[in-house]
């Protein structure tokens, strides 16, 4: 049986792993390769390395650390950050990343999804979606440029419309980060994730809000997502990946032990 995936996310800024609260106030958590290896050894199923500065500063993620991680890591990882063209993507994949994840550039130029899928296949094209619940209109909206709070802005799309479009364009997986919950550690937005999971036929990864073990249990059991992504609870050591997976297994969730 296919295991539910536990995916630590390493937000990278200027070559270091950082973590902010609600996309602000980034603190340095450590160097990339040692943290990546630590998570692999603890039983992480996959890693996401996300260069949060890349879209704003209009630079492609540095290939040096992508290659360093690929050389040493024996589990899959995806790289996100400023990938705006087929050539950018090829560069990242050639340096050993398993998947590339695009967010803002896909919103700016949705046809990029089709181009990437045509060149590399759906299986390595992940779409990152930053979804924000607007209490005023009661809708979830997609945000772009979320790496920097001063540049972050609402895109002209509702989240459900956008995820449907990305699947139609050939995306292989989507990571849905609910901005209202991000870094708050009060649990994933299970109803929203469940709606998305029921809307699309590709793997959905939950992001934003993990604080306790039961948040993971809940999102797998209630929303039936393929994986759960988290950062701060892992970086701080509050939840060890191995302990989390033992607990999930005891709760009857299928995980790789």
């Amino acid at each position, binding site marked *: *049986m*296919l*295991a*539910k*995936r536990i995916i630590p996310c390493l937000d990278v800024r200027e070559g270091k792993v950082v973590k902010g609260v609600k996309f602000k106030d980034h603190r340095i958590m450590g160097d990339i390769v040692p943290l990546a290896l630590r998570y*692999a050894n603890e039983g992480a*199923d*996959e890693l996401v390395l996300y260069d949060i500065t890349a879209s704003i500063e209009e630079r492609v993620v540095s290939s040096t650390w992508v*290659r360093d991680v*690929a*050389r*040493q890591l*024996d*589990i*899959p990882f995806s790289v996100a950050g400023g990938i705006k063209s087929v050539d950018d*993507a*090829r560069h990242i*994949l*050639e*340096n*050993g*990343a*398993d*998947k590339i994840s695009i967010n803002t550039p896909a919103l700016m130029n949705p046809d990029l999804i089709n181009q990437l899928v045509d*060149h*590399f*296949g*759906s*299986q*390595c094209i992940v779409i990152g979606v930053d979804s924000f619940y607007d209490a005023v209109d009661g809708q979830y909206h997609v945000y772009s440029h979320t790496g920097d709070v001063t540049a972050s802005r609402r895109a002209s799309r509702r989240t459900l419309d956008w995820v449907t479009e990305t699947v139609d364009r050939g995306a*292989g*997986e989507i990571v849905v980060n609910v901005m209202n919950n991000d870094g708050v550690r009060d649990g994933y937005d299970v109803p929203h994730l469940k709606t998305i999971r029921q809307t699309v*036929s*590709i*793997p959905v990864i939950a992001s934003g809000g993990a604080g306790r073990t039961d948040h993971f249990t809940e999102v797998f059991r209630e929303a039936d997502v*393929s*994986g759960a992504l988290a950062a701060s609870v892992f970086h701080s050591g509050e939840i060890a990946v191995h302990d989390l997976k033992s607990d999930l297994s005891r709760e009857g969730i299928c995980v*790789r032990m």
Partner: protein
Amino acid sequence: MTESVAVVDTGCANIASVVFAFERLGVHAAVTSEASQIASASRVVLPGVGSAGAGMKGIRDLNLESVIKDLKCPVLGICLGMQMMATESAESNTDCLGIFETTVEKLSNAGGTVLPHMGWNTVDVKSQSKLFGGIPDSSRFYFVHSYALPVIPDTTASCMYGSTFSVAVERENFFGVQFHPERSGSTGSKLLENFVGIQL
């Protein structure tokens, strides 16, 4: 043991992870699209991401089709590399290498099965295979694919996801795995080590 492995470069991306996996085992892996280098190698790996159509076009453009089919050393196809060893693929109706007599089919999405099949799944080892030596049955490997070979007489391991399909095949010196051993932790590393150690 100073084994070396030739990794066939068909122009598809992501060959680096395969090379690095062999390096972690202390085995030198040379990326090449040179017919002479492939033909004289003691081990050949046919990796692959992307589509069967693009992969086979890469092989044909480089005039490597007969070179690969005529190899007598151990050859390991990984993911798309395994699929290209079949007779044909339903993915863009592509004629493939014809080493394994079967057609690559799209995985079933019956019952709402999520595709691609992405993540760590258990593998049911059907027969004594040199590749799986020392690897317990029902070990987990990392998969990323939407197409697969059906179960055939050459199948040595299978997986159930929506339907049951081949995840490892073996015929003489040709081996194929649908999962990515280079990204399957210590279990995948053991499989690659077994491949390097195969004596025909």
